């Protein structure tokens, strides 16, 4: 009696401890590849199709919810075997110091694919030492989203090309903002917030905080840091901002109620805008951004060093990201292509009702081709956070000079850490 009780107890404990481990149910010849990505980071239909395309591969695709980056980093930190294939967002540079935790894709044959992709995007996944750790999924070319009706009422041009002609620079764009203020008595603002302008000016630049040697270049004339800061401050001082943080419920409401006439954003803002402001359908247009073409966001795939099947993983990746499948992914989940051939696909020319029948794909493909290659540096996010916080304070009334000095001081402290 006591023995059976002991046995049951032991079994319970063992089961309890084992329950964390999963059991693989693949056939002996199949190779299981684990893939980590986030919702809408890849096209689910394509992932399912991998099984058919590669009969000897069993793909175990896991959507990692919540804060993807922290979960990936804690997995890497724990040193345990993570996934085979993993998706990165534009924070890919943060992983450059740990490049040896990933396969160099050039060793697996990525070199021959290079001409098929947008060069600036491809280079974002290559370390300064020339190791390619990540392969492009999608891009986030930026453009100016604007309300045609509001521009018309303020006496501004409404045709995308005219808009771009008149608002080719940020300064001209702000002038249009002043006109809007006059026409609507300040009830309709040119754009959303101070951080948005800072981000977008930097998104158009080829050097922001660091050069390829990881040296801080923010104070050199080549860097767009101060220029972006000054433009952002200028917009705030001229009263052109609605001061609503991007993609919050406030932002959604302001967009839907027509309190904001325009904003510069990446192509993925399209979906967000459509969800946020359904009442304004048909009234929006897209033009080339003031200040030039830029990129904001866009993700990558990489293969972890712990993977036992790097060759198969690379083949799967190559197939998932080939130009044809990028067109499919654009159709299914709006992932804007990084392969040049995919940019020429007829679907990019489709007219969109939300944008009054304009085919915004034309604008975004132009923008995608015009982006300059940039190097972000491993501490980009840290520095950007510091500067954005000080800018936020400026929008709320802090003296810009004091704020700039405080930001620089904090940045220098950060660089020594």
């Amino acid at each position, binding site marked *: 009696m006591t023995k059976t009780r002991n046995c049951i107890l032991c079994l319970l404990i063992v089961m309890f401890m084992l329950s964390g481990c999963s059991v693989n149910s693949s056939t002996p010849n199949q190779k299981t590849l684990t893939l980590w990505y986030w919702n809408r980071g890849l096209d689910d239909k394509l992932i399912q199709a991998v099984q058919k395309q590669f009969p000897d591969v069993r793909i175990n695709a896991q959507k990692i919810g919540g804060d993807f980056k922290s979960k990936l980093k*804690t997995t890497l*930190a724990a040193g345990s075997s993570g996934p085979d294939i993993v998706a990165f967002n534009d924070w890919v540079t943060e992983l450059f110091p*740990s490049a040896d935790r990933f396969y160099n894709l050039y060793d697996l044959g990525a070199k021959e694919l290079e001409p098929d992709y947008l060069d600036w995007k491809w280079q974002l996944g290559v370390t300064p030492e020339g190791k390619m750790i990540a392969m492009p999924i999608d891009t986030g070319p930026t453009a100016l989203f604007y309300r045609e009706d509001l521009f018309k009422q303020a006496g501004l041009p409404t045709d995308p090309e005219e808009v771009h002609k008149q608002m080719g620079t940020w300064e001209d764009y702000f002038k249009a903002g002043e006109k809007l203020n006059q026409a609507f008595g300040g009830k309709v603002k040119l754009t959303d917030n101070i951080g948005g302008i800072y981000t977008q000016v930097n998104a158009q630049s080829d050097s922001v905080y660091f050069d390829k040697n990881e040296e801080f270049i923010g104070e050199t004339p080549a860097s767009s840091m101060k220029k972006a800061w000054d433009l952002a401050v200028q917009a705030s001082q001229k009263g052109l901002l609605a*001061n*609503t943080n991007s993609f919050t*419920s*406030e932002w959604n409401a302001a967009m839907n*109620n027509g309190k904001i006439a325009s904003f510069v954003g990446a192509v993925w803002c399209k979906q967000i805008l459509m969800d946020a402001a359904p009442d304004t359908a048909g009234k929006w247009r897209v033009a080339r951004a003031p200040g030039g073409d830029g990129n904001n966001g866009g993700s990558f795939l990489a293969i972890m060093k712990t993977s036992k099947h790097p060759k198969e993983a690379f083949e799967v990746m190559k197939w998932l990201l080939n130009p044809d499948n990028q067109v499919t992914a654009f159709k299914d989940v709006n992932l804007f292509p990084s392969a040049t051939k995919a940019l020429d696909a007829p679907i990019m020319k489709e007219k969109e009702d939300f944008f009054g029948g304009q085919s915004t794909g034309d604008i975004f493909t132009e923008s995608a081709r015009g982006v300059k290659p940039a190097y972000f540096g491993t501490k980009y996010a*840290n520095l950007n956070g510091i500067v954005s916080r000080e800018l936020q304070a400026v929008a709320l009334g802090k003296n810009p000079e004091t704020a700039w000095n405080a930001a620089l001081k904090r940045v220098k402290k950060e660089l020594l850490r």
Partner: protein
Amino acid sequence: MGEPLRQPLEPRQVHAVSAKRKWSSAIWKHRKEYLAISPFYILFAVFGLFPILFSMYLSFQKWDGISEMTFNGINNYRFMLTDPEFWKAVRNTLLIWIYSTIPMLFSALVVAFLLNASFVKFRTFFRIGYFLPNVTSLVAVSIVFSTIFSNNYGLLNYIFSLFGLNPVEWLNHTWGIQLAVSFMVIWRWVGYNAVIYLAGLQSIPSVLYEAAKIDGASGVQSFFRITLPNLRPIILFTVITSTIGGMQIFTEPQVLVGNDGGANGGGLTIVLYLYREVFINNYFGYGSAVGWGMFVLIALFSIFNWKMVQGSGAK
């Protein structure tokens, strides 16, 4: 003490030699009992003790979470003590704690008193009603509150406009953010503390009140002379739990105003600061140091509260 008082003393030498064996044999003799309680201790060792010790070690290292750790001496602690953002976070946390805890415990006491009063009908209904916020998802609550306190389209500003008042940009001010967070804490924890107080109230013998009544004490007098002194240990318990909870406040400001703590960092609490340094800025070692800094703060604060609540009634 179940042992007989007059136990024959063993010679010291024998005692020393057999101590170890006695120990292990005692464990072996009770192995089933130890096995039965082992799951808790194993889980505690893995998920509690080890992380605590490891974070102690980590707080002296420089680590981005992926590459090799390097020894960093006391630099993490030095950086923490000289970082104005850290002190801002400490200040914010204390302010939010004060704004929330005092009204919260006071209203919990009032609610408990009312629930205990004989004239209240449907007591169970009210008890459940007050407790309900405590089991609601924190993120959902934060989202609801963010629409209430929202700058331009918030419910509160809508109500203000009905009375012809100017809208207040709550989330553009340090105090506004802290007020909103405090409201969330109060809303969530009044019921919980009220239920605890209620248990305390019900354990006070009614004879005391009856005796006081006969001696001509008023309701207020019996509240201050009987109820409060008898509730003191329970008040101490709630003060300490809300200190620990209040020092660790995180989800409310994070969902309300984001990782940066919103306008001028008004919602940047210590844990939010820790989270940002670790998971946004990748300073795992530094984050551990902040965790230990927080430990010291909570300990100091709890001792302070203990002394205050215990001391004030020692007349």
